[in-house]
């Protein structure tokens, strides 16, 4: 019996680029390059490692996003995933996390799965709630924020490092897992992997394929509304001194003037 793994990935604006909002207060995608969210690379890596340990496994990478989001799927395929599913629909523009989790859950059910693997958060919205939302919607256990993960038969195990304790978790498949950036370095795609990725299947789905009503997604259907977005004023230039032997004392004077000491 093959282990069916679905990895949810997101195509995000490059954080080193100049990110800003469009007139409708959604992300302006025109002015900044996109890429596979770095935190999702860890999810792909762990899926590959779990598949490597299984007798037989198949990895599907799944994304919801515009045409360009195919780049994120290609990157994951070049790392070694087997196939991809791309949910693309003009009506999806402006969908918030509630709508996205709904679309992903429908697409995961349609694809079929034993294990869903996510990154801990996207590097753009950084909410970190999508894996829990998916588990709730799919009605399966959440085994989230793992720095170590393994699958043994039909059991998934992992270590969750929290603020106050480190926990060993265990759940039966099917389940939703999310992994942190401590789960292990993500591999670089090899030349062979990049060439092979070009031939791997990418299935396109739209809202109709998922039996989803357009009024549950998009900007109009969103559960939240951004009322304003203002660029933070540039910080006024601070005082910068060169240490000539008294730098620590000068800094202490500043901290006194600000009442920190």
């Amino acid at each position: 019996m093959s282990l069916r793994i679905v990895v949810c990935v997101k195509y995000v604006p490059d954080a080193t680029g100049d990110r800003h909002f469009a007139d409708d207060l959604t992300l302006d995608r025109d002015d900044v390059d996109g890429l596979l969210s770095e935190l999702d690379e860890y999810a792909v890596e762990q899926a590959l490692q779990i598949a490597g340990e299984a007798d037989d496994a198949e990895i599907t990478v799944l994304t919801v996003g515009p045409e360009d989001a195919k780049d994120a799927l290609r990157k994951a395929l070049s790392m070694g995933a087997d196939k991809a599913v791309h949910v693309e629909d003009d009506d999806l523009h402006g969908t918030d996390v509630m709508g996205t989790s709904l679309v992903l859950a429908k697409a995961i059910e349609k694809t079929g799965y034993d294990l869903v693997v996510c990154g801990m958060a996207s590097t753009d919205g950084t909410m970190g709630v999508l894996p829990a939302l998916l588990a709730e919607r799919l009605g399966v256990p959440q085994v989230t924020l793992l720095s170590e993960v393994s699958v043994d038969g039909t059991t998934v195990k992992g270590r969750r490092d929290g603020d106050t304790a480190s926990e060993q978790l265990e759940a039966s498949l099917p389940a939703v897992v999310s992994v942190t950036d401590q789960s292990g370095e993500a591999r670089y795609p090899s030349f062979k992997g990049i060439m092979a990725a070009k031939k791997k299947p990418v299935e396109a789905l739209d809202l109709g394929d998922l039996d989803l009503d357009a009024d549950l997604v998009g900007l109009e259907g969103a559960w939240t509304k951004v009322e304003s977005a203002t660029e933070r004023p540039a910080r006024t230039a601070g005082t910068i001194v060169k240490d000539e032997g008294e730098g620590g004392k000068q800094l202490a004077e500043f901290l006194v003037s600000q009442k920190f000491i």
Partner: protein
Amino acid sequence: MAEVLVYVDHVDGAVRKPTLELLTLARRIGDPVAVALGSGAEATAAALAEHGAVKVLTADAPEFGDYLVVPKVDALQAAYDAVSPAAVLVPSSAEGKEIAARLAVRIGSGIITDATDLEAGDEGPVATQAAFAASFTTKSRVSKGVPVITVKPNSAPVEAAPAAGTVEALTVSFGEKSTGTKIVSRTPRESTGRPELTEAAIVVSGGRGVNGAENFHIIEALADSLGAAVGASRAAVDAGWYPHSNQVGQTGKSVSPQLYIANGISGAIQHRAGMQTSKTIVAVNKDAEAPIFDLVDYGVVGDLFQVVPQLTEEVTSRKG
């Protein structure tokens, strides 16, 4: 006045500071009703009443400690059903966000995470958030359902506002999904005696310039002189010089203290994402061109091995 549910983060009855901050914000939009779960839940009542909770709903059961997240969602949902609140506020911890998210699905509501401020609005509470590595400030509201909002630590002052704080036992029936993820074992993190990173009023961080785990004691000494938490950049964490739990940045923790002191940190966008909302920013770096200097209120271009110990000595002697 409308009631507002406030999820209580506590350790064996000791209420953590972010929850007390939440009570300040909750009072702006209604009467806070606190929900405290697990071992020591009833012991939270005095502190919660002192900070404005009109009522404290408590529940304890082995499920809260034995299984991940879902039993707490079942309980918060029970409180929601009992109270019919105008909003649900939860501290923005990793677990808090997961609990809030699952509750939002169940009650058909939208969710806003990591709010840094909250005010009453004509169409419900309006939340302030930082976006794109804090280069933008947004104001948002939940447009469907009863708003579920998680709030970052240090977003509001802790204010005493004595209220009734009547304790009531909350009846919780756990769903069959609540035992889905078993917590097989738990190893408490060893306390350093320093404040928790995300809650601290002052954070002292070290980066690549610290140049080795063996040198981090210089950063720790400065932190201790100021009663601060210790942070580290991703470079320092990836090099194994400091634990990941102390990482500040896009893939680590997001901090918003009154004072942030960056030592030997260049200030790459990934680090800035985690500290840019700090009120006052100070940096010590050898490289005058380091991007961190674009953010600072006060910067020292110099060798941290000279500057930091001198600063620590000054702080110690002035405090002494």
